């Protein structure tokens, strides 16, 4: 058996996996997935960015746009701000628990009777 070849293949495979620096797959649009979830949206957002300057100047990664499992946060390049689609929030709390390492997101729960409503959970 050709050990070098095996190692090279192994290496190549690993390079293509998450061991490498870059995240491989293109960013998934999860709109379809969120379409399966029932939401009762309130008029007022229960999420807000505390200081938009922090997003603009200190956070090139825009962490919240990656860590939020519902893609609630989106970087609007023209307006240079984070937009918040609070209506599709799964209320998990990631954004208040380190999902924004700058602790720049204020999250509360929606009012009683509003927000996500799991039928299965």
């Amino acid at each position: 058996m050709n050990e070098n070849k095996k190692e090279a293949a192994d290496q190549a495979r690993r390079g293509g996996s998450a061991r490498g620096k870059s995240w491989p797959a293109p960013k998934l649009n999860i709109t379809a997935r969120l379409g399966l979830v029932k939401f009762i949206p309130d008029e007022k957002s229960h999420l807000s960015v505390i200081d938009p300057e922090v997003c603009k100047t200190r956070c090139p990664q825009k962490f919240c746009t990656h860590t939020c499992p519902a893609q609630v946060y989106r970087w609007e390049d023209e307006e240079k701000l984070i937009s918040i689609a609070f209506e599709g929030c799964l209320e998990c709390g990631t954004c208040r628990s380190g999902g924004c390492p700058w602790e720049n997101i204020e999250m509360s729960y929606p009012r009683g009777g509003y927000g996500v409503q799991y039928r299965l959970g």
Partner: protein
Amino acid sequence: MNPATRETTNRTTPSHFAAIIVGGGPAGLAAAITIAEAGLKVAVIERGDWPGSKNMMGGQIYSHPTSKIVPDFWKDAPLERQIVRRDMWMTTADSTLKASYETTDFKLEPYNSFSVFRSRFDKWLAEQARAKGAYIINETLVEDLLWESGKVIGVRTGRDQGDLEGDVVIIAEGVNRFLTEKAGLGEKIRPAAVALAVKEVLALPKEKIEDRFNLEDETGAALEIVGDITGGLPGTGFIYTNRDTISIGVGVILKGLVDRVGEAYELLERFKRQPQIKRLIDGAGPREYAAHLIPEGGYRDMPQLYGDGVLVTGDAAGMVNAVFTEGANLALLSGKMAGETVVHADEQGSFNADTLSYYGRRLEKSLIIKDLKQFQNAAPFLSSHAHMFNLYPEVASAAMKEFLTVDTLSKADKMHLIMKLFRSQVPTRRLVRDMYDAWRAIL
């Protein structure tokens, strides 16, 4: 909304309760049942349309702790399948090494565990609490605690004239500790001490589930999967079989995800594409998507569990054994003990921290604190040894492959190759260190 729920919401509620419970999950509802059974007035305040509508887990509930709250619950509760098999899979991008345990005992009463949907199960559990006399107040968010001379005396809700008073407030709010923080009992959870879990429920005909997972009618399997699927982040994948659906998800330590600037739903997609996993879910259509945090910090990240007029239970109290993926059972048991503490305090006529320390003593003597203490080094260990999540599966897979591939090499040569591969991937110093650290973390 179901009419029964509306009726309870509108029923005239007393102005003073023995206990006000924040949150209708397993911890809060177990407490409510215990207190109502003792004949005391108790209210559960739930922010969702019904208890369970905001809740999510893998998941399975264990029979023993559940039957401590509702005996013979399996005769009536909305359950999916009796879990008779537990699988541990170590995966790489294209291979799987499996350990599996199954026993026919687990399909006999009192069973061991059942796959469930929390939105249905918690709703049912709330109905049991209501039948015992507990008030279930839905669609109501508790915004703050009410205080009087340093003692918690009730809650402020988002409703007009929504203040409710009680001898004890039981915080069963779940992993996001809004009130626990406000009460000064704990701090915001650390990203290294919390896992983000995302899950999909996929529909698949009953027969296909039973064929693919080698199951009989009513019986189910629980799979825990480590390896390449989490992309080298500390975390696991899980699969639970339900009646005609499969719950599939991934949980990873949030700090790892943030450091990687990664996406949890991408991990789930990656997990679903792994060939041996893909075969299990092939053709299964999505029914629901969900995300939730799991407090995995263990003993070291627990808040204070009681104060003057207040108790903390379940996920809010950090009662999760991440090593054994247990949480709802600890929530049920701690909720029951919180309920018993309210009954005890009512008998004493005192609700200060000193009297409520009864709760702390009960917990100390129970498996909850014993287990959490035993595994207190596990969470830090797993975070600092993230390499173990794909290094060992990769090496084990390569060794198995070599061993099972029949070619022109002698077995002795193969063993030699495997040892060489092993040493090149895992230097002895690292192996010894990992094993020692693992041993210290778990034993």
